[in-house]
């Protein structure tokens, strides 16, 4: 399969949208484009399984290389393993849902959908990249659409949030940039041909002192994207000011770019440093989990609740990565996917509620189950997934992370695991409290009584995301199998190339 199609499909759609006239045509073309992406991703999944079943056990499948900047040895190099396939699938699902919930966007709808599609092209490219330059290129591509989406269509203090998000994420990129250059110039020996090629670099061993210097740049740089404490401050502002679709994308996909980068680039290419820095990573992740959970308790705005809880949940990703055991890393990747679906669904539900009631304050909502049963249901599903109810994806991911963490016998690691587990209780408190107040009880304001339930497009978006959550929750094996080879190769690689045993 030609993987470049995944990047080209949204780009072509974006250009097509620009030439559309009339709101309806813009919507339908965007939806068609997103559906093509979805079909392509499922096609990729099927092909991937077929290849694997046929006994193809190469680390990367469907590789494609094209010289880009030959004098600098920069290639456009793409390929997928199980982890990338899963992330691509997640992106396609969230994208489809994001387009569906944006049906009601009327101001500058053409620009809105174009930017949204542009954003997804960057995410696909990022997950496909096997060349670090290509990867960095796609990581940075998202700055323009994110800034404009939040700043133009957002709510609240949107300009401030857009600026903060753009600057903080670019700082993250700047750190990644330094780390990448450090890697590049330490490949191929003095004066030799340097390379950005991930596959080539992964066969090299960097001296411990090189890893020690450049690992923090890469990890912290990608970490900023995934709300690494103390660089998480863009998350609440950015998520809550963004329009619904952008929030879904930011929390669902964008934050996962960071986790994927930490794993694929920082930990994979510099396993020794990862081991050395692991206590620090665990410490920061635990702080993020506990602090995020407590901060969520104090929030009154639904979007802020989800944003802060995202900090807490993304802490699990970093915790899993920092533990460096097979199970924990598999759990971290599962958490990326589970959180991507869950948070997108949550933001979608919040957006739908806000569209109707024009408030997101928990105190001013109440009894929505009676008025809008569908929206309330997906709200509850997302909430329960967030607090880790068995049968939903959140439980599967978190329990895997905890089991993997417990395998690490160090005292500090044990303590971190216990604290992280305990934070689930706090999660339950804020989720149940919010759900109770918003969904249950008497209808708070009389004018809510006449409000309509979800329209067809919103229902479709909710069902799509909800189905994903339940599919993972009920039958986690397929996802586990999909991820296993990728996670396995990361750990094999870490053990094989490690200098310090």
């Amino acid at each position, binding site marked *: 399969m030609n993987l470049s199609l995944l990047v080209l499909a949204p780009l072509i759609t974006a250009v097509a949208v620009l030439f559309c006239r009339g709101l309806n045509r813009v919507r339908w073309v965007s939806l068609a484009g997103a559906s093509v992406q979805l079909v392509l991703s499922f096609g990729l999944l099927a092909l991937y399984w077929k290849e694997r079943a046929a006994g193809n056990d190469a680390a990367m499948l469907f590789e494609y290389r094209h*010289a*880009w*900047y*030959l*004098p*600098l040895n*920069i290639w456009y190099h793409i390929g997928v393993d199980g982890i990338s396939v899963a992330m691509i699938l997640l992106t396609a699902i969230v994208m489809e849902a994001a387009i569906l919930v944006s049906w009601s966007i009327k101001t500058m709808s053409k620009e809105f959908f174009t930017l949204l599609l542009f954003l997804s092209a960057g995410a696909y490219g990022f997950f496909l990249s096997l060349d670090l*330059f290509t990867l*960095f*290129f*796609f990581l*940075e*591509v998202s*700055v*323009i659409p994110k*800034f*404009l989406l939040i*700043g*133009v269509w957002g709510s609240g203090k*949107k*300009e401030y949030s*857009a*600026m903060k998000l*753009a*600057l903080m994420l*670019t*700082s993250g990129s*700047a*750190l990644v*940039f*330094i780390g990448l*250059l*450090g890697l*590049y*110039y330490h490949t191929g020996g003095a004066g030799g041909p340097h390379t950005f090629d991930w596959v080539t670099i992964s066969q090299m061993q960097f001296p411990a002192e090189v890893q020690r*210097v450049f690992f923090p740049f890469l990890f912290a740089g990608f970490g900023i994207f995934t709300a690494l404490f103390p660089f998480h401050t863009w998350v609440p502002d950015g998520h809550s000011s963004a329009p619904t679709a952008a929030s879904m994308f930011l929390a669902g996909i964008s934050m996962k770019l960071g986790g994927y980068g930490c794993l694929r680039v920082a930990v994979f290419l510099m396993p020794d440093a990862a081991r050395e820095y692991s206590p620090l990573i665990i410490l920061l992740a635990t702080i993020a989990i506990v602090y995020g959970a407590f901060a969520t308790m104090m929030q009154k705005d639904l979007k802020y609740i989800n944003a802060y809880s995202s900090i807490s949940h993304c802490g699990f990703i970093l915790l899993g990565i920092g533990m460096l055991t097979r199970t924990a890393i598999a759990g971290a990747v599962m958490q990326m996917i589970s959180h991507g679906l869950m948070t997108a669904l949550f933001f979608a539900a919040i957006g739908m509620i806000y569209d109707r009631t024009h408030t997101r304050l928990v105190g001013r909502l109440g009894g929505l189950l009676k008025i809008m049963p569908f929206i309330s249901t997906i709200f509850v599903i997302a909430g329960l997934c967030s607090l880790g109810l068995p049968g939903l994806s959140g439980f599967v991911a978190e329990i895997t992370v905890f089991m993997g963490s417990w395998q690490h016998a160090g005292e500090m690691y044990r303590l971190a695991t216990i604290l992280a587990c305990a934070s689930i209780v706090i999660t339950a408190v804020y989720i149940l409290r919010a759900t109770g107040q918003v969904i249950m009880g008497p209808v708070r304001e009389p004018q809510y009584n006449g409000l309509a339930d979800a329209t067809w497009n919103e229902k479709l978006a909710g069902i799509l995301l909800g189905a994903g959550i339940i599919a993972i929750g009920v039958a986690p094996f397929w996802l586990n199998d999909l991820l296993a080879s990728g996670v396995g190769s990361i750990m094999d690689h870490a053990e094989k190339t490690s200098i310090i045993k």
Partner: protein
Amino acid sequence: MWAGFIFSLRQELIVTGIIFLLLFIKVGATEYKTAVILNLVNGLLLANFILGFIGCQDSILFSGMFHTNKLLVLEKNILNLGTLIISLQAYDWLKGHRQVLEFYLLLLATLVGFFFMISAGNLLMFYLGLELSTIPLAALSSFDLEKRQSSEAAMKFIMSSAFSSALLLFGISLLYGATGTLDFDTIGQRLDGSAFQLFAFILLLSGFAFKISVVPFHLWTADVYEGSPVTVSAYLSVISKGAVFFVFIQVLYTVFKPLAANWYRILVLLSILTMVTGNLFALRQDKLKRLLAFSSIAQSGFILAGITGSSRTGDASVIYFILVYIFSNLGAFGVVSLISAQTGKEGIDDYKGLYATNPLLSWVMAISLFSLAGIPPTAGFFGKFFLLMAGVGKGNYVFIGIAALNMVISLYYYLRVIKAIFMESQPEPIGKLTIPFLPNLAFLICVAGIIMTGLMGWVYDYIYSLSIGL
């Protein structure tokens, strides 16, 4: 003999030919239509640009005074392209101007000066070319004839230029005293790094630093950019600076190769100072022209970072960046020029709500600014990436760390403008503007350049194949 002469000098001769043609029109014609002249000149500049692509071979003329090779021809052609874009953008402003012919006479004279400067094989030739370009530039700065600010800018420019020329001449004379020659190749052989030679070199460097507005020699930049007509500011920031950078890197990498260890440290220091100062001052500007002036100072710092790479990639990245910079900066200046010509508004606050009335201009501005900030998929990203990548070639990661931090700072003020255009509103936004054909064409070239240059790797490959290393 003559054929070889003409062929080697063809770019200079074509531009000189255009100058004479315009001069004859000026002297001979009793009356002419401004629009006709503008179309004629733009056509000729286009022809000049296209003719520049004709292949050439290396040759040395006038007993070593004038060199030419593929790299120099390419550099001159990059300047040709920039001049063409600027000329297209100036259409709106010049349409209502009384002295169109004089404007082009002066503008093209500076271009010829730059050409000779780039091709110089001798310090005298270099100085001649530089002065040929500097003095008409001062006249151009005062081309907004009714504005006092414009004359003030010209005055400032001529004073600071004179000062820098004096430094340069002093350096040249000392260097002559130290080495006994003005010839570039011979100077290179006779340099031994003595204190006297270093002193001469530093004077020479200061002269260069003035022209490319490197801190601490940047003080003239913002005032001159602000006072001059936008077209001239654009020319100063792109063509003038680009040409001097071309010569600068050539001279450093060939003539002053023996002093590489010395200038490396100086350049790192100057680069950091320039980036930081340019960016910090740009943060507080309210006028777009001043903002672009300080941003162009900061960009000089980034280019210096590329030069410190002292390798073939360094040379290639600088030339590549200047090409990209021409597209990006001219895109931004083009919008400012058009809006300034039609409404007279130049403040960032005036741009609030521009998107509602002029979506096309807004997108051109946004794409150009994103390219200046170095955000992909624009070409500016590739340009900056390669500059810093070359700069880190010597293993100085702290330096590049500071540069990367500066990229984040610079993003803030570029985003401020974009924020004003797309997100804010004001009671009296700029009305709907009509964009004439030629400026529209210029925007198309800029935007196409910004989007395509980075994605097409062969542009860089070609530049790299011609570049020189230390």
